[in-house]
């Protein structure tokens, strides 16, 4: 078991390095000179060259890469072109908000997706199954921004049940429990929008796994032993069907981070996604790369956790 984890960790080292190289390449390929934004017409070419030297922009690429990586390891992603804000500061400010949103969506996807899939599989070829399957397909097929807009339109604008955006009611200045309640109130719609696609894929995946497992020989054995349906479905089938579902824990993380871009921008949720969108509009490559790198690392960690979980739930791998 420990060996397995160690092996997985070892394998992710080249991947981490690859991620940083790819991030670096994308950054270097970005058009325009990072200094171009600051060009003061009064600065002479010589002075510009000096600052280039100072910034290390004339070094060979690999030297630049190692310098950059050295900074990144220390958590330093540089500064924005405009306003000279520390990028890590900006991101740290946003990171918790994104985590609140994605984590809620993550929990929702599995808390709702797994039971939906199980029910559909157990009630195979009934109306319940057809209904749930259709719902899942719509969930996978609907563009998330369109669903977001629909949700805002109906639940915020027409019915007025929830706020249409933001994370807190700034004017109210809540603290303590009231603050928590206010965030929750703002969180519900974006979390639903962000998780819908994931709920749908989780339930589809669970359903098909359940159906596969229900056809296994050991289910027949369980039936032959005269066990109750409940024991057959939950003890024998469900636990086996859950094993592959663990693998999509990891896969759903990039999915949710991608989705956060759109959800956050529609709902004005002050997270990394929204920061990213603004960065794109302002061509802040430093921010974009930092975001890429951070999310890629989070995703990698997610996949790793998911692999380890897999090994924990499946005795065949554990040994």
């Amino acid at each position, binding site marked *: 078991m420990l060996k397995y984890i160690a092996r997985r960790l070892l394998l992710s080292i080249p991947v981490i390095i690859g991620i940083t190289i790819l991030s670096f390449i994308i950054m270097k390929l970005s058009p325009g000179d990072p200094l171009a934004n600051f060009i003061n017409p009064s600065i002479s070419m010589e002075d510009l060259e000096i600052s280039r030297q100072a910034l290390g922009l004339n070094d060979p690429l690999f030297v630049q890469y190692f310098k950059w990586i050295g900074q990144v390891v220390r958590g330093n992603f540089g500064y924005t072109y405009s306003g000279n804000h520390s990028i890590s500061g900006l991101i740290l400010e946003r990171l918790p908000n994104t985590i609140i949103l994605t984590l809620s969506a993550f929990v929702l996807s599995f808390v709702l997706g797994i039971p939906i899939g199980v029910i559909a599989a157990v009630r195979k070829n009934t109306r319940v199954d057809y209904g749930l399957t259709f719902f899942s397909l719509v969930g996978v097929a609907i563009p998330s921004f369109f669903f977001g807009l629909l949700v805002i339109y109906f639940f915020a604008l027409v019915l007025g049940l929830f706020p249409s955006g933001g994370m807190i009611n700034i004017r109210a200045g809540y603290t303590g429990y009231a603050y928590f309640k206010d965030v929750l109130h703002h969180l519900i719609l974006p979390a639903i929008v962000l998780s819908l696609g994931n709920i749908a894929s989780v339930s589809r995946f669970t359903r098909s796994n359940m159906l596969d497992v229900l056809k296994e020989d*050991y289910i027949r054995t369980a039936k*032959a032993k005269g066990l109750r349906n409940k024991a057959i479905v939950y003890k024998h089938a469900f636990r086996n069907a859950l094993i592959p579902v663990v693998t999509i824990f990891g896969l759903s993380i990039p999915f949710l981070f991608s989705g956060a871009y759109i959800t956050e921008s529609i709902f004005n949720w002050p997270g990394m996604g929204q920061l990213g969108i603004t960065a794109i509009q302002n061509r802040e490559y430093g921010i974009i790369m930092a975001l890429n790198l951070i999310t890629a690392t989070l995703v990698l960690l997610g996949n790793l956790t998911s692999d380890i979980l897999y090994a924990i739930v499946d005795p065949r791998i554990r040994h």
Partner: protein
Amino acid sequence: MKPSNTTPGSPLPSNKKPLLQVKDLSVKFRTEEGMFFAVEHISFDLEEQKTLAIVGESGSGKSVTSLAIMQLLAENGKITSGEIFIDDEDILKLSQRQVQHSILGKKISMIFQEPMTALNPILKVGEQIMETIIEHQGASRKEAYAIALDTLKQVGIPSPEQRIKQYPHELSGGMRQRVMIAMGLVTKPKIMIADEPTTALDVTIEAQILNLLENLKETYKTAILFVTHDLNVVADIADDVIVMYCGEIIEKGPVADIFETPRHPYTIGLLATMPSLDNDNDILPTIRGVVPNITKRPTGCYFHPRCDHAMPQCAQRSPAVFQVGQQAVKCFLYEQDALGVQDGPGVQDGPGAGEVNHG
């Protein structure tokens, strides 16, 4: 004895009451081309502490029969007629819950061909044995554990205290089959169905398992319905034999009679095609042709296109069952001479084993 349209009850007059009685059972399967009979109007009895072997080639309906008794047919299979009595109770009339509660695992248990896939990979073997005891005997976990451990000892598993905590993949094929058998016996059912329990095993392990089954039958006083394609195994283990072909019982009788004087041309052919250790011919006797697909069965007697003794009537209608000595045979050859007359195509003067369609 008068011919009947279905196979008669036990060929052996006996005052023992059968534990398991299958009467006129038919099973249909839905395929993409329509509904077809997998098993047609079969009847047989299984008596206390006897071993009844159902033997047949693929597509003969032998496994379907055992699954139908356990009500474990696949979704596209359906029992269309018949009765299955266990202790004088027609279990087809019971609700699913009643069958689960009072029949399966309690009065009748089943072991399967592939012990690897038939055991749940993520549950410890002990747990899988214990749950049956807890379900049917209301035992506590502690009691169940003790019983499970004891049963593992009974089936000859070395160091059961360790094995009980292991997962199926940690055991060898032979050990897994022993676990399956322990699982089937742990509630001391009166009937056990064994569906090709040794087919997936090596010869030396097969011998061990067959030996074990025979011993356990004595200890547990269990009757066994043994489903197999292997006539050698039948010779070793069975008291009575049912030979199936295309979903029908074509011959039935005590094992010694069937092996000594097989009556149905198919049974004769089947016994002759086995390569034997002391036969040194160059060419094996064979049955020509192939088993027809379930969707393309011929009219009349299903065997007639492959039969060397086929008569015009064989193509037209299905023969009735005739009693010849201890054997019941579904073949027109015995129409005139039913009841104990020996001049059918027996081994002596009929199409003897050695003569069946060489090459």
